[in-house]
């Protein structure tokens, strides 16, 4: 079987033309692939980051109630606060939180204590800390020289680090120091029975705004209520801004595309004599344009596909994704990012169109303009004349 019969002769000849200008074609392929890779990586990363943050924030409490006084925030009586919150219809599972920010050996750390028992499936083999012990996140562990951790606030406390939280939980636990409620209260200067604030879940999340007034009125002291959606919006804005910055940073890449297009135009102009010969041999303007578009597609489509696939792998496949996260965030190690199928598909299609269409349009328009000239005029540029 002759394989040539599988492809139209015009496509075979377009491939032959690519072979004739192998260096230029390789350069074009590399430029297109890297341009697509750079833009797609940045946009897919910001979109995946947005999805990952949204997924994490989905686990955050809907509302956080903090008691305030003239000097700022004040500790909250845990049992009373739970009782007051439960009176408000639509409030689920009010949980007093014990947490605070204290100076650690490598900078401020987030001290947390869980009043409730942490389920075994969460612990996954990690022993909960006993009095005088702490379980720390990767960021805190890195700053330790031995297993003793000195934390200083109103009161100073030295705890023995008995375990380190897994690296893949880093998005939530990187700077955490998990200790017993007694140690946390001692460190944060809280009296027994007091908590830092009260976390609340709602029966209907969409009531987040509406329920705040009822909730504030249910407490006998002034409170400040922060909502999850405000935080989620801030994170979303930040992710979008990151994507925007990436696109702005992609301007040089777009300039590179412009250069590619200019190169293509110059290439076409240089081929005027060749096209004049083709016309004298019976090629029409449409044939020449078809040849050039075929040629552009044989180089362009694999380049765009390679750029997109590499960007996809660089963002969503762990070993490469770690490198990408390190590169884009300037040193952070992120766990695997969340893939939102529709969002990623739209971004990839958009980028394919953003790069592919101007390229094909440039090839098409310049080819039409040059090939439509009189064959005699074009032949005059040939080396034989």
């Amino acid at each position, binding site marked *: 079987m002759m394989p040539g019969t599988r492809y139209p*002769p015009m496509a075979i000849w377009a491939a032959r033309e690519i072979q*004739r200008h192998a260096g230029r074609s390789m350069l074009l392929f590399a430029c297109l692939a890297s341009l697509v890779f750079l833009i797609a990586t940045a946009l897919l990363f910001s979109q995946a980051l947005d999805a990952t943050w949204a997924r994490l924030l989905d686990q955050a409490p809907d509302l956080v109630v903090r008691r305030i006084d003239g000097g700022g925030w004040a500790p909250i009586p845990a049992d009373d606060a739970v009782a007051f919150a439960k009176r408000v219809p639509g409030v689920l599972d009010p949980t007093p939180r014990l947490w605070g920010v204290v100076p650690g050996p490598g900078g401020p750390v987030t001290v947390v204590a869980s009043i409730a028992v942490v389920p075994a499936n969460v612990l996954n083999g990690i022993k909960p800390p006993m009095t005088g012990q702490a379980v720390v996140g990767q960021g805190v562990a890195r700053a330790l020289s031995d297993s003793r951790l000195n934390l200083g606030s109103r009161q100073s406390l030295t705890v023995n680090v008995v375990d380190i939280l897994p690296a893949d939980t880093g998005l939530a636990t990187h700077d955490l120091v998990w200790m017993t409620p007694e140690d946390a209260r001692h460190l944060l200067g809280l009296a027994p029975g007091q908590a830092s604030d009260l976390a609340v879940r709602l029966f209907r999340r969409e009531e987040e705004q509406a329920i705040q007034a009822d909730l504030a009125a249910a407490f006998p002291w002034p409170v400040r209520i922060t909502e999850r959606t405000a935080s989620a919006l801030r994170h979303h804005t930040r992710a979008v801004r990151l994507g925007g910055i990436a696109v702005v940073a992609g301007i040089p890449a777009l300039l590179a595309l412009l250069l590619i297009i200019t190169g293509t135009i110059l290439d076409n102009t240089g081929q005027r004599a060749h096209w004049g010969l083709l016309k*004298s*041999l*019976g*090629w029409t303007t449409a044939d020449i344009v078809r040849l050039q578009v075929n040629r552009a597609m044989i180089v362009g489509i694999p380049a765009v596909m390679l750029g997109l696939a590499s960007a996809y792998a660089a963002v969503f496949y762990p070993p490469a994704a770690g490198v990408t996260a390190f590169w884009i965030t300037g040193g952070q190690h992120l766990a695997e990012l969340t893939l939102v199928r529709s969002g990623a598909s739209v971004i990839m299609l958009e980028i394919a169109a953003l790069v592919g269409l101007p390229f094909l349009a440039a090839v098409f328009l310049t080819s039409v303009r040059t090939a*439509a000239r009189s064959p005699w005029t074009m032949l005059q540029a040939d080396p*034989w004349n």
Partner: protein
Amino acid sequence: MELNTGMACRRLDFRWPGRRTDEPLVLESVEVKFSPGTVSLVTGDTGSGKSTLLHLLAGLLRPTAGEVWADGLPVSRWPSRHRDPWRQQVGIVFQHLALIPDLTVGENLLLPMIPRQIAWSRMQEEILRQLADADLSALADAPTSALSGGQRQRLAIARALVARPRFILADEPTAFQDDCHAAQIRAQLCHAAHEGAVVVICSHDPRLRASDAIDRRYHLASATLTESSANR
């Protein structure tokens, strides 16, 4: 004038575009008909306008006045979008050959066939046939740049004939050939004419002027084309 078949010039004038109108014409009132099945030879001094006449007949140039008719159609008046596809019926041999040096001999022959919607296998068969006729079968895979002048010229003729065009226009087709190959080229062109093609040759070559294979002879001088009945 009967304009139904073949190729004809009707009061054809040509002056290079951009030249002043008081400058002499390159071709003036050319009135000629080239019939199918005949081999016509146009002779003339260097610079007399023979190549220009061929380019006008091939639809590469437009006449300043008058018309070129092909098979009863005024092709010189046609816009490019109609004239370009018509050019598929023309096989032209340039004086400078215009081969693509980095392509192989076979690939140069493939060039006119690509846009003609012919099956790949048939293209290869046609190329094989032309290579055999041009005595180039052993050189199918050789790059054109490796050929001698005579071989290149035979390749240019093969390229003009490979798609079996209706009109064959050859500019100095035997200039670099030995007697044997010149006779071979004459035979090729005669064969094409016998198959119904219109063959117009512009040449200085005395071997062609003396050849019996030429059916009609014309002489171009002072921008005017005249038919000469004599063989010399």
